[in-house]
């Protein structure tokens, strides 16, 4: 919509002033080198020069554990009460392009505007203004540039996008929500940059990308029966430890389980993240398990990212953030899997 600029020192002033009215969620250093998105009390806590947080921004819109409703068993009837609705307005600051893209994909999954919209997700999504932050220095494991519509400066569905320039930030105002935030705080912004400046800067940043992978036709290749049945998955599963690091730090993984906390005759029903890497994930009554070994489970994860997601929503389920290959205890690498699978076909 429009392109503006904000000085680096003015940015923290802006964040501090926003904090008075809204809740700010931004990357903070929880422990040495451990960056997480958290509620922020002062702009000083916000880390700007990070490469990627450990957990993605999905944790804000789709919390690891989210309470759904309360219940009480009154012998003749079951009383169910909604929990107090989310109120207030939120600002999610500092989301990287890969995480922004993942929100775009999660919008599809949780059917943001559709008939079966997930009210818990939608509530937070509607109340949140997203300020994205381009990567100035892509990390060693980042490969977003290899994916369609993504780059270290891609705006995706951010309301406002910041790109670090020399001494200040280039600001792109992209939606009505973004427009409102900028016009309410217009004194912080100036007119300085144009769209061309962004393009030049993008080229500069992209030239620093280390990791690339060719994802052309990967969906079609994954659909082939001999790829599905290949021994490759067995071989790959040998090194998998079967933990859930990859799925829990993945910005697009969205499977959850529904459980109760109950004591006596009352309790709370909640949902929490679940992982297809766990052996009880697909376990059914009578001990039947359609994915009995790690072979099926590992295959499922890559099939979901690269094939099923595309079949269902028309987009790849991977955003190239590189978290899983970096944090996997055995470096099970999705970029390697993509190129290996291409050789199978």
């Amino acid at each position, binding site marked *: 919509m429009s392109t503006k600029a904000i000085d680096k020192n003015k940015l923290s002033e802006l964040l501090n002033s926003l904090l008075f009215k809204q809740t700010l969620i931004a990357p903070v250093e929880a422990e040495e080198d451990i960056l997480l998105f958290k509620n922020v009390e002062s702009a000083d806590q916000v880390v700007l020069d990070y490469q990627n947080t450990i957990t993605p921004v999905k944790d804000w819109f789709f919390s690891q554990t989210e309470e759904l409703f309360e219940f009480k068993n009154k012998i003749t009837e079951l009383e169910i009460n909604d929990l107090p609705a989310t109120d207030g307005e939120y600002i999610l600051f500092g989301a990287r392009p890969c995480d922004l893209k993942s929100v775009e994909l999660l919008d599809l999954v949780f059917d943001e505007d559709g008939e079966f919209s997930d009210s818990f997700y939608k509530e937070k999504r509607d109340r949140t203004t997203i300020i994205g932050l381009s990567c100035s220095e892509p990390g060693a494991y980042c490969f977003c540039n290899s994916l369609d519509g993504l780059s270290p400066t891609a705006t995706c569905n951010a309301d406002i996008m910041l790109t670090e320039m020399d001494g200040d930030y280039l600001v792109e105002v992209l939606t009505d929500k973004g427009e409102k935030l900028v016009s309410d705080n217009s004194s912080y912004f100036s007119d300085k940059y144009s769209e061309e400046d962004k393009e030049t800067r993008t080229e500069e940043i992209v030239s620093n990308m280390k990791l690339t992978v060719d994802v052309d036709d990967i969906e079609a290749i994954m659909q082939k029966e001999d790829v599905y049945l290949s021994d490759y998955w067995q071989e790959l599963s040998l090194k998998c430890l079967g933990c859930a690091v990859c799925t829990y730090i993945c910005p697009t993984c969205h499977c959850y389980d529904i459980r109760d*906390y*109950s*004591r006596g005759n009352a*309790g*709370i029903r909640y949902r929490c993240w679940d992982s297809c890497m766990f052996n009880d994930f697909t376990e059914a009554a009578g001990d039947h398990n359609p994915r009995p070994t790690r072979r099926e489970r590992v295959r499922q994860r890559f099939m979901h990212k690269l094939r099923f997601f595309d079949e269902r929503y028309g987009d790849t389920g991977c955003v190239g953030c590189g978290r899983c290959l970096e944090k996997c205890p055995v470096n099970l690498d999705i970029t390697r899997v993509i190129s290996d699978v291409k050789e199978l076909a």
Partner: protein
Amino acid sequence: MKRLLEYVGFEPERLYVKWISGSEGQKFADTATEITENIKKLGPNKKMRDAQ
């Protein structure tokens, strides 16, 4: 176990493990009284109480 719980930040006085035979009624009563008195001094446990 007691050492471990102490290490992660429980008050050690909260956990008692004691062998009391069926014929040691007085020992049982004394132990129960001792525990109750100590716990009353400590007040309610706040650790691991955020779950439902």
